[in-house]
C-alpha cells in the first residue's frame, strides 16, 4: 500500500489561498492511512470553511489513481469544479497527478506527503517494505528486503553499526540484516551469506511506462 501523511493544515490552507476549493479523496490507500478517506475529507472541508474559504464540493475517488474512473466519477461534479479555483487532493502523489492530468486550468494542491510502499502492521501503524527498484531480489534474502529496509541498501550486510538488532541510523528500526541473519541461522544456512552479492542493476528501476 502507498503510505501517506497529511501535510500540516497551515501549509494546506496557505496553498488553498482564497479558494474556492474542491476536495478530492481516495477510497483505497489514503482511506486506510486516514489521510484522504471520507472522514478526513469532511474534516478538511470543515476546517477550510472555518477559515472563511468556500468549499464548492468534494468526492472520494475509487481510487484516485485511476484516470478513467476519475473522469466518470467527477462528471456529476462539473459545476462544483468549475466554480473552484483549486482542487485539493488528499491522496498519494499519483492521485494528485491523475487529477492534474484531468484539469489543466485549475491549481492542483497536494494535501498529503507520500512516504513509501509499505505494510499495515496493525491499525495506524505502517512499515516500509519496498523501493520499487524494478528487479526483486527477495529470494536471496529470505523474503526480507535490504534494498528498502536497510538505510544503506546493503546487499552484503550487516554493516558494523547494528547494535542488539537495531539499526545505527534509527534505534527504533530493526536491522533488517539482523533479521536475515536470524532466519538463515534457524535454517542452518548461514553459509549463504558468504557469497558476495554482485552490484545491483539499478537501470531496472528507470522504467517510466509499462504497457501490456
Amino acid at each position, binding site marked *: 500500500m502507498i503510505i501517506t501523511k497529511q501535510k500540516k493544515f497551515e501549509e494546506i490552507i496557505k496553498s488553498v489561498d482564497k479558494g474556492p476549493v474542491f476536495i478530492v479523496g481516495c477510497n483505497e490507500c489514503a482511506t486506510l492511512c486516514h489521510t484522504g478517506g471520507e472522514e478526513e475529507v469532511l474534516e478538511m472541508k470543515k476546517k477550510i470553511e472555518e477559515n472563511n474559504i468556500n468549499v464548492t464540493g468534494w468526492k472520494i475517488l475509487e481510487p484516485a489513481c485511476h484516470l478513467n474512473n476519475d473522469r466518470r466519477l467527477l462528471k456529476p461534479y462539473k459545476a462544483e469544479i468549475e466554480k473552484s479555483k483549486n482542487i485539493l487532493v488528499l491522496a498519494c502523489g499519483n492521485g494528485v497527478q491523475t487529477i492534474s492530468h484531468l484539469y489543466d486550468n485549475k491549481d492542483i494542491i497536494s494535501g498529503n506527503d507520500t512516504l513509501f510502499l509499505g505494510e499495515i502492521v496493525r491499525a495506524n501503524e505502517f512499515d516500509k517494505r519496498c523501493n520499487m527498484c524494478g528487479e526483486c531480489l527477495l529470494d536471496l534474502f529470505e523474503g526480507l528486503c535490504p534494498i528498502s529496509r536497510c538505510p544503506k541498501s546493503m546487499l552484503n550486510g550487516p554493516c558494523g553499526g547494528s547494535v542488539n538488532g537495531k539499526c545505527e541510523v534509527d534505534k527504533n528500526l530493526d536491522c533488517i540484516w539482523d533479521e536475515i541473519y536470524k532466519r538463515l541461522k534457524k535454517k542452518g544456512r548461514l553459509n549463504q551469506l558468504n557469497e558476495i552479492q554482485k*552490484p*545491483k*542493476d*539499478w*537501470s531496472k528501476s*528507470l522504467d517510466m511506462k509499462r504497457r501490456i
Partner: protein
Amino acid sequence: MVCKSNLQRSLDEGLFAVTAEIGPPKGSDPEKITKKAEIVKGFADAFNITDNQTAVVRMSSMAGCCILLKEKMEPILQMTCRDRNRIALQSDILGASAVGIKNMLFLTGDHQSFGNHPESKGVFDIDSMQLLQMVKKMRDDGIFQNGDEILAKNPDVFVGAAANPFADPFELRVDRLHKKILAGADFIQTQSVYNLEKFQVWMDEVCSLGLDKKIHILAGVTPLKSLRMTERMKFHVPGVDIPDDIYNIMKKADDPKSKGYEIAVNLINDIKKIRGVHGIHITALFWEDIVPSLVKETGIYPRY
C-alpha cells in the same frame, strides 16, 4: 577572489578567451594527458578536463587537473552531479582549491544510461543550479550547503556553467542562463554551436537583457572529424543542433576531415563577430592536435 586565474584575468580585461577540452584516458597512465597537453599548451587560456563525460569511466578530472598544473598549464575542473552527492561535491571543491585549481565548471551531468555502466545508480542529489549556488556560498560567504561555517579558508573558484542555446523549449533558454547567473556562474561554456542563426537569436536576447555584461559567454565549437561523427552528433547526441546544410556538406565531402576543419574555422570567424561573445571553447573530441592550427588560422592566437 584572492588570486585570479588566467582565464578570469583575460576575461575581466575584455580579451577574447580561448578554452579547450582535454579528455582524460580510460586508464591511469598520466602520459596520456601530458602528451595531449604538450600539443595544445599555449594555444588556450585554460583547459577543461572532463568528469567521466557521457557517463563513461575515465581518469578523474581532479587528477587530470593536477597533471596539467605540473605541466604549468591552467586547468578547468569539471564536476557533475551524477556520481557524487553534496558531501562529496563540497569536499572535492575544497580539495581542488587546495591544490591550486582555480577554474571549475559545474554541470548536472549526462545520465548514466548513456554511458558504459548503465546499471549504475545515478546520484543527482542536487542539480547544476543548486551546485552553482552552493559553490558561490562557499566562496563568497564561507558557508557549506547546510549553513555550517567553513573553518579553514574559503575555496577560491572562478565558477563556470554550461548553457545550451539550442534546447527546447527555446523560450526558456535565456531565462535559464539568467538563473545560472543568479545562482553564481561567472562564465559559461555553451553547447557546440553549428546553428549560427539560432545562436545569434539567443545571443541577441542575452544582450538585450544586458546579461552579456554580467557573465562571460564562451561559445562552444566542436570540429566535425568525420561523417560518422556528424551523424552521431546530429541524430544521437541530445541537445546538439546540426543544421541540414552542414550535414549535407559533410555528406558530400571527399575529405570530410578537412571539410569539418573548414566548417570549424568559418564558425569561429563568424562567432567572433557576434556581440556579447567573450570567447571560444574548443572541444576537439579525439582530435586535440587540430587545436593549434584552428586558433592560429582564426586569429585568436597568440594567447595573452
